[in-house]
């Protein structure tokens, strides 16, 4: 009975409440009070709203996400573009240390196309130029080197350096007289390639020591540079125009959509060992302005063929990026790389034309991998593009034959198609030429001054900082400062002993 009475009491209260709420008078009053709390547009406001303060912010809908992220994306779909944009801002933008940036990029195994510098397949130079997005600066088969080399001062020390170089060659041959025949026969390919390689390395080492020690008096960068032997350089990059390998649905990550697996860019991994590497505190100067027309020809460098058709391989590898030194070293920029492999056996088996292409491509890819690795050490990567161009030079020699190649890297966003990123890289490759013809009676004959001048220009090219541009804007750490060791020791005489005789 008590419960029933309570229900009746509740019902009656509800009925009263319902009656009040549904009455038109109450509704109007409620509506006006509610409307006072909402900031209505001016055309819908009543006269009662005029007394409200105007400093309240207008409420509206949240900002609509644009269809494509800022920047040019070419033929990419919306999801692919936002994926790359998010990688740049959310992931790479928050990492400030170089080691962590490199770990983020390489802490995974991927199916990547192998991109070694030594490639013995025929007609490989065009493929290497397309994959590295490079324009070869040559005209009518003539070698054109960058104009910056004309400003290198070699006249003051030229005669002295020439004398030192000739002496070094003669001493080296005198010490290993029994094995001279192997070096002379290296061009024919009859010598064992490994033996010729060892001899070439020794001869190159003596020539470089002679020139660098002789010229360091007047060139500061040679006093504080680092020279290392047998340096491993590795770099990985994604290139547009090559389809990714098919991944079955069962092995795909649930976080990534189907479109990301069907992108028109694939991973390439290059790794090799450089015989000698000279590193300096500052980078090499740029060879050509990034606004030059040669640097905006990416539409001519699109890969035309699948790498498998041209004899290339892909494999599941751990990605790797190393520039050849420990992080924290003061000398972070590669000045010159020297490689001694001459591919003599390939020349004998396949002929001159095939050898010429592979030999030229060796220097090109060495430079490219060196530039990409240097850029990663400075905090740049495929998400955060370069702010200034990176340059590299390679001397390809066996002690007698020299080939010089230069490279300028203008952009790391190789995964973008030419419509989105028309920036291309530039390379200069010289023909192979002899420094000297031979030796008779332990004396050098046929010394080529032109080749020696180019060699000196390469080694004596002064590195410089970029005008007003910070070298590592994406990174917050400082490398050590280079130390110049003084060769003269001060001897202080504390006490002089005089003996009685």
């Amino acid at each position, binding site marked *: 009975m008590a419960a029933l009475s309570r229900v009746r009491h509740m019902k009656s209260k509800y009925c009263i409440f319902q009656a009040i709420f549904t009455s038109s008078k109450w509704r109007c009053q409620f509506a006006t009070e509610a409307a006072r709390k909402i900031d209505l547009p001016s055309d819908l406001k009543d006269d009662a709203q005029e007394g409200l303060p105007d400093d309240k912010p207008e409420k509206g809908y949240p900002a609509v996400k644009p269809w494509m992220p800022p920047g040019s994306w070419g033929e990419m779909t919306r999801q692919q573009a936002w994926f790359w944009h998010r990688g740049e801002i959310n992931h790479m933008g928050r990492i400030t240390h170089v080691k962590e940036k490199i770990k983020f990029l390489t802490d995974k195994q991927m199916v990547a196309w192998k991109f070694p510098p030594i490639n013995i397949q025929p007609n490989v130079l065009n493929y290497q130029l397309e994959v590295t997005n490079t324009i070869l600066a040559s005209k009518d088969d003539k070698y054109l080197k960058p104009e910056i080399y004309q400003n290198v001062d070699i006249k003051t020390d030229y005669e002295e350096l020439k004398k030192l170089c000739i002496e070094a060659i003669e001493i080296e041959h005198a010490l290993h007289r029994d094995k001279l025949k192997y070096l002379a026969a290296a061009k024919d390919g009859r010598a064992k390639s490994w033996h010729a390689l060892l001899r070439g390395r020794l001869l190159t080492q003596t020539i470089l020591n002679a020139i660098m020690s002789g010229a360091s008096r007047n060139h500061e960068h040679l006093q504080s540079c680092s020279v290392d032997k047998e340096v491993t350089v590795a770099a990985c990059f994604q290139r547009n125009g090559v389809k990714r390998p098919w991944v079955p649905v069962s092995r795909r990550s649930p976080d990534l959509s189907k479109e990301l697996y069907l992108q028109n860019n694939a991973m390439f991994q290059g790794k090799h060992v450089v015989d000698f590497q000279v590193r300096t505190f500052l980078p090499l100067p740029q060879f050509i302005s990034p606004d030059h027309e040669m640097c905006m020809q990416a539409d001519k460098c699109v890969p035309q*063929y699948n790498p498998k058709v*041209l004899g290339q391989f892909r494999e599941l590898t751990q990605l790797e990026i190393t520039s050849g030194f420990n992080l924290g070293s003061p000398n972070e920029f590669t000045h010159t790389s020297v490689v001694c492999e001459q591919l003599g056996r390939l020349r004998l088996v396949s002929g001159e034309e095939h050898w010429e292409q592979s030999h030229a491509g060796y220097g090109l890819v060495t430079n490219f991998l060196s530039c990409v690795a240097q850029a990663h050490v400075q905090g740049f990567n495929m998400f955060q593009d370069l702010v200034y161009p990176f340059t590299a030079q390679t001397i390809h020699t066996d002690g007698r034959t020299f080939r010089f190649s230069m490279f300028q890297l203008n952009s790391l966003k190789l995964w973008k198609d030419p419509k989105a990123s028309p920036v291309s890289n530039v390379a200069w490759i010289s023909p192979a030429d002899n420094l000297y013809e031979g030796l008779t009676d332990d004396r050098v004959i046929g010394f080529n001054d032109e080749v020696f001048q180019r060699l000196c220009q390469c080694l004596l090219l002064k590195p410089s900082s970029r005008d007003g541009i910070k070298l590592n804007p994406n990174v917050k750490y400082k490398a050590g400062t280079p130390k110049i060791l003084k060769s003269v020791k001060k001897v202080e005489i504390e006490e002089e002993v005089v003996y009685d005789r």
Partner: protein
Amino acid sequence: MTRLGFLERIPLWQRTIPKYPLHFKGDPQLRVYLPLFWMKMVQPANKFPKNIVLFKVHPQMSKLDIAQYLEKIYETPVANVRTEIREQQIMAPWWNRSKKQWVGRKVVTRIPEKYAYVTLAKDEFVYPTPKKTEKSSDSERYKKYMKIREGHYKELNEALSVPAWFRR
């Protein structure tokens, strides 16, 4: 049972070539023999450069055999040869149980096929694409089919001398 026995089931182009003896300098000249080598030009699925041609070859042919086959028989200089073995998956026959393998719900057997990517030294070759014939419309094809069918029935009826009442 013939002399070859079970080998007769395998076609000539699929039979394995027996090992021939090595020839050393000074030995008597071996007789000329005709090995079961064959090469078949195949249309590539991807875009190829003009100086690279794709062949399907006998699985026992080496790179040197392929180069010499083209140079001596067809007089085309060869710069480079690369070979690749692809496995063709087909439904396993009931009499070949040892080579069966379950792939999903299917029972398959794998037949290895050898492909050769030949880089020509001087010549260029582009695989010709056949001309596409214009397809007739569906109604015209139906009429053609019915005519042929009528012709077959007419011949059959005349051959069996079927009375007119029973003819179609």
